[in-house]
């Protein structure tokens, strides 16, 4: 496929790894922000191509992983209601709340549907005027414009039986949290390419300057990731701390103004709890007051739930790049994708699940 295959070229990847080896003169920990990038890195074994000096630590950029248990329980309570058609992206279906997941609710007779696009929910709402269609609006800035458009269109079309349960999270406040942490060891970031396709990279410039940390906006294919790593390592070697753009074919400094405009018409920033991490100020979106009639959290009274996380799980530290999945005593023992104890084992893009799915626990045992 055009714009994909050429970025998976093994020869080019090898040459980039060679350049990285020549450029990396001292030890450095780099963090890729996005779970999709973590997935590619582990899938293609890119971390194993790197010299010993360059360590990749995995970031918090998996919306499925960081959606708090409390929010999941709320979604599940709504999905169990008989009048509700509960719509979600496929990756949220297997994520367990305190009492099972959406799959189980579906098996028990709940009307749970997977949608490809949030606009599919509007079709469902039109086709079932006697039912309540609820959409679980999760995701980073990449997904927010699509979810905003669904709400915008619902209002334009006068759809009274559609609402959204919003649990959006934002990348720059999470990076700030990581850099402010006393445990931080990240010296450079690979920025999230598709978040920046929407938002541009202006918000990362004050971060790079303030914390003296290079940020390279990076794509998702092996050649993209290796070039991003090379650019970051080069900045470190030259003592620079700038925002650079590896992913110029899809990202501009300003981002996508149309998408931003619609997002900010519908959403406003708010404090948000991240699973395994806690509340990060101004790190999420919620509906603006003008759109509160579409807020499923208001439309459906749900008793407040105080769930508890399993004690053994260190996914909060994994999400912040302080620990790796291997460091967790439960990894690949009590905790597997079939029996996940924590957030980062649940989603395919979580670091624990990526390590498990690509057999990293086997390699480790063989050592």
């Amino acid at each position, binding site marked *: *496929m*055009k*714009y*994909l*295959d*050429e970025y998976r070229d093994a*020869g*080019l990847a090898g*040459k*980039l790894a*060679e*350049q990285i080896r020549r450029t990396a003169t001292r030890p450095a920990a780099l963090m890729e922000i*996005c*779970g*999709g990038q973590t997935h590619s890195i582990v899938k293609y074994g890119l971390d194993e191509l790197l010299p010993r000096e360059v360590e990749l630590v995995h970031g918090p*950029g*998996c*919306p*499925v992983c960081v959606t708090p248990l409390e929010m999941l329980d709320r979604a599940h309570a709504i999905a169990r209601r008989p009048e509700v058609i509960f719509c979600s*992206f496929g*990756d949220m279906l297997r994520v367990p709340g305190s009492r099972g997941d959406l799959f189980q609710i579906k098996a028990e007779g709940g009307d749970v549907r997977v949608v*490809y*696009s*949030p*606009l*599919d929910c509007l079709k469902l709402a039109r086709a079932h005027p006697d039912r309540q269609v609820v959409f679980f609006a*999760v*995701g*980073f800035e*990449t*997904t927010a*414009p*699509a979810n905003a*458009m669904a709400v915008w*269109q619902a209002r*334009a*079309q006068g759809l009274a039986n559609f609402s959204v349960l919003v649990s959006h999270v934002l990348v720059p406040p999470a990076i700030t949290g990581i850099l402010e942490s006393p445990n931080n060891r990240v010296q450079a970031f690979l920025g*999230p390419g*598709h*978040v920046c*396709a*929407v938002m541009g990279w202006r918000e990362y410039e004050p971060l790079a300057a303030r914390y003296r940390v290079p940020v390279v906006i990076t794509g*998702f294919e092996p*050649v993209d990731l290796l*070039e991003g790593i090379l650019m970051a390592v080069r900045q470190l070697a030259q003592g620079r701390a700038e925002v650079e753009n*590896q992913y*110029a*074919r*899809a*990202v*501009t400094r300003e981002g*996508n103004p*149309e*998408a931003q405009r*619609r997002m900010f018409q519908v959403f406003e920033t708010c404090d948000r709890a991240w699973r395994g991490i806690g509340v990060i100020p101004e790190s999420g979106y919620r509906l603006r007051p003008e759109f509160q009639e579409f807020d499923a959290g208001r439309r459906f009274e749900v008793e407040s739930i105080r769930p508890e996380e399993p004690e053994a799980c260190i996914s909060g530290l994994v999400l912040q790049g302080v620990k790796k999945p291997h460091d967790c005593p439960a990894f690949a023992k009590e905790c597997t994708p079939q029996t996940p104890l924590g957030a980062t084992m649940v*989603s395919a*893009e979580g670091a624990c699940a990526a390590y498990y799915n690509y057999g990293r626990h086997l390699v480790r045992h063989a050592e």
Partner: protein
Amino acid sequence: MCLAVPGKIVEVRESSGVRMATIDFGGIRREACLEYVPEAGEGDYVMVHVGFAISRVDADEAARTLELLREMDQLAEAGPEEPGGPDEVP
């Protein structure tokens, strides 16, 4: 979750006041909303995420990146050029 895939716009139309398109992903066709890429039209490549085009693929930038990478490739190799054209993938 933040996956976006490049695809080619093959047909643009209007549906309930929204600009929609059929997008070709290497033979697989799907619908996507074009409201956020007003500058994109038939034949253009866009990055598609959850049924929305979020950016137009900049063909010049893509070609330039690959050119740079290949130059580096050849410098590192210091050998003969690779056979075939540099970047034409059908």
